């Protein structure tokens, strides 16, 4: 069994929502990066600190129930709502607020936005 550790993620400048605490488990090991160009540095950092498995959502797919946290670089319309709608905790790199047809699914318990590397801290 892997040894997982929790991280605390706060919103960045101009961001919205959170803070979120992310703790991967054997059932939900994935730090799911749905960003352009491979694993985003934010996803890599969360994986490094938690012991979760960084996963590139654009190169292959994984079931929702295996995702500990989704990391997106959404401009505010689609991806920002898709993961919260499935109750998957979501970190948006961009400082967006809930909008679009999926806004009703987005809550402060499920989304944190504008996140920079400094906003991710291990839980002691």
């Amino acid at each position, binding site marked *: 069994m892997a040894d997982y550790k929790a991280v605390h993620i706060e919103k960045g400048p101009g961001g919205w929502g959170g803070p979120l605490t992310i703790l991967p488990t054997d059932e939900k090991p994935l730090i799911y990066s749905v960003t352009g160009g491979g694993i985003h540095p934010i996803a890599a950092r969360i994986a490094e600190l938690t012991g979760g498995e960084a996963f590139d959502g654009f190169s292959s797919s994984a079931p929702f129930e295996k995702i500990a946290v989704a990391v997106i*670089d959404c401009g505010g319309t689609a991806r920002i709502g898709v993961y919260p709608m499935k109750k998957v905790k979501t970190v948006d790199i961009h400082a967006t607020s809930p909008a679009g*047809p999926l806004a009703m699914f987005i809550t402060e318990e499920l989304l944190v936005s504008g996140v920079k590397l400094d906003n991710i801290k291990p839980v002691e």
Partner: protein
Amino acid sequence: MTELYQSTVTDIGELVPAFIAEGMLVFFGEGAPEELRDFCIMHEVSHKQDALKVGDVVFIDNFEAEILAVGDVANENLMNLGHLNLKANGNTEADLPGDVCIAEVELPEIRVGTTFGITRR
């Protein structure tokens, strides 16, 4: 006239009409994760050349509309992911960083095989 972007629709998600009803078309390139497909118009890019800007023209089959606003991350989304949030809201400033805005017009019907793109006059 310069062709900046050219693509063909390959699939249309079940929930696309809900977005169209709000004056939005959400495009994603092939390779987008499964869970996004319900919401999106999937397409296969045949040509991409340059970043779009205000004043360029979006065409969808015979429909044409001038771009009024381009959000800060819209070009990054389009080039990396084939992802475009096209909003027919008449805004001259993008509300959200991913938005590309055109006049408040009725959006055209989208079918598999529909061609869309962006040109510069």
